[in-house]
């Protein structure tokens, strides 16, 4: 909570959250490297990274509704959550390029260009990239009002990621439905709020 300023929470908000956040990736990698991910370890590792990217996006998007609806303020974790989403998406894409597609560019590039499933996933990562690059204090100060506008791109990235996940399988399974449902809920909340809660009117120039 925001009022809690104990050293433990401060540490967690600083670098502890990254240590915890990268556990699923490290654990999954270790399982994969030691034969613990079943018959198709590459696919399992790749999917785990993608799923956690979406999970961190969901957590990032949950910060504002939690504050507005429940009075829980997790604002100072939001940057870390967003960056974790970016790093997981980047790892997911790296595994796709290397372990999955074996860096065979002649088949990778046409797939990214032509197959909506892959194009959308790639686009989601591309939308996260400027957000990750401008997540530092200097950028926030420099960009001013535009920083907020720019970071609304996270809604686009989350939508693209959800559709990418939807297209990844032959049929919808419960895990998929739950994650995509959360994205819809969190984006829908913002839409409803934008429609219902009128902003303070701007003064005419």
């Amino acid at each position, binding site marked *: 909570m925001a009022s809690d300023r104990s050293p433990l929470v401060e540490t967690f908000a600083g670098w502890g959250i990254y240590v915890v956040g990268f556990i*699923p990736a490290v*654990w*999954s990698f270790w*399982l*994969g*490297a*030691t*034969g*613990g*991910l*079943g*018959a*198709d*370890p*590459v*696919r*399992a*590792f790749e999917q*785990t990274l993608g*799923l956690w990217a979406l999970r961190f996006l969901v957590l990032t998007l949950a910060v504002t509704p939690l504050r507005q609806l429940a009075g829980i303020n997790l604002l100072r974790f939001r940057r870390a959550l967003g960056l974790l989403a970016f790093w997981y998406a980047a790892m997911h894409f790296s595994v796709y390029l*290397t*372990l*999955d*597609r*074996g860096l*065979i560019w002649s*088949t990778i590039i*046409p*797939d990214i260009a032509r*197959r*909506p*499933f*892959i194009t959308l996933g790639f686009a989601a990562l591309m939308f996260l990239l400027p957000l990750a690059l401008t997540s530092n204090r200097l950028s926030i100060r420099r960009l001013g009002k535009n920083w907020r506008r720019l970071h609304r791109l996270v809604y686009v990235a989350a939508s693209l990621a959800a559709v990418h996940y939807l*297209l990844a*399988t*032959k*049929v*919808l*399974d*419960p895990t998929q*439905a739950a994650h995509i449902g959360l994205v819809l809920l969190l984006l829908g909340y913002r839409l409803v709020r934008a429609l219902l809660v009128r902003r303070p009117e701007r003064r005419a120039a």
Partner: protein
Amino acid sequence: MPTYRPPAIPASEITPRSVYLRRREFMGLMAGAGVMLGVGGARAEAPATSPLKTVPGPYKVDEPLTSREDVTTYNNFYEFGTDKADPSRHSGDFKPRPWTITVDGLVGKPQTFDVDKLIAELPIEERIYRMRCVEAWSMVIPWDGFPLKALLDKVEPLGSAKYVAFETVVRPEEMPGQKGYFQPMPWPYVEGLRLDEALHPLTILAVGLYGETLPNQNGAPIRLVVPWKYGFKGIKSIVRISLVEKQPPNSWNSLQGSEYGFYANVNPEVDHPRWSQATERRIGASGFFGSGRRPTLMFNGYADEVASLYAGMDLRANY
């Protein structure tokens, strides 16, 4: 991690059953922790299978076999769940014996066969085939079975029969994927072949793999194997085979016709709308480091045997 590439060794020389069963217990314990994080794959107890008396068959792929462990833990069998590990985990309650299979429709002698009697009566051949899934992964599997033709000959198809329709069992009480809120598709799972495809010597009804009766997750006690077609044509746990005049429905085509056709011949030049079919990943071929990706072969490498069946046909339209 360097991976051991197994040579094509006969089933009799594979690790004794008791040994790999102990390994599974260990893997199960190890995977338990992984499951809690949602990243691991639990290994189910091996279900009861029994040895089969087999003879070498006429078709044998000269490529390293996919391990029995991979063949029996990485399955698409949505009647037991949509995750690849679900069939091996959740098929323990399934009772594949005793089992009968009804062959009817446009035939002179419709009959219901007891599967164990068929196994005792017909020579069970070992057929080492490539298996190419529509999801772009592949295996090499030593099936044990008999040509579908051997069964169809017994019922004497009529001249009017042009297609063969297949149907999987519906047992929600034994197949957890067939009950609950998330039903991925309507049951029963159905498939079909043209009669000439069904009578082709490569087309078999498998009753075992690696020299033992089929594990539940692989379609016990009897399933179709058509090695030049995508894996979803290989309908499992068959209860009915009907000879018909018109092209019968097949489940994946009914569900998503733009992505899955009736023919479903393996074809590297005709892509799935969402992914390329030009390459495939051979399961277990390269472990974690190294993609194991290889080019997909026309008709899954069986073009010499089956290309003539489709002479003059537009394979892009009839995917």
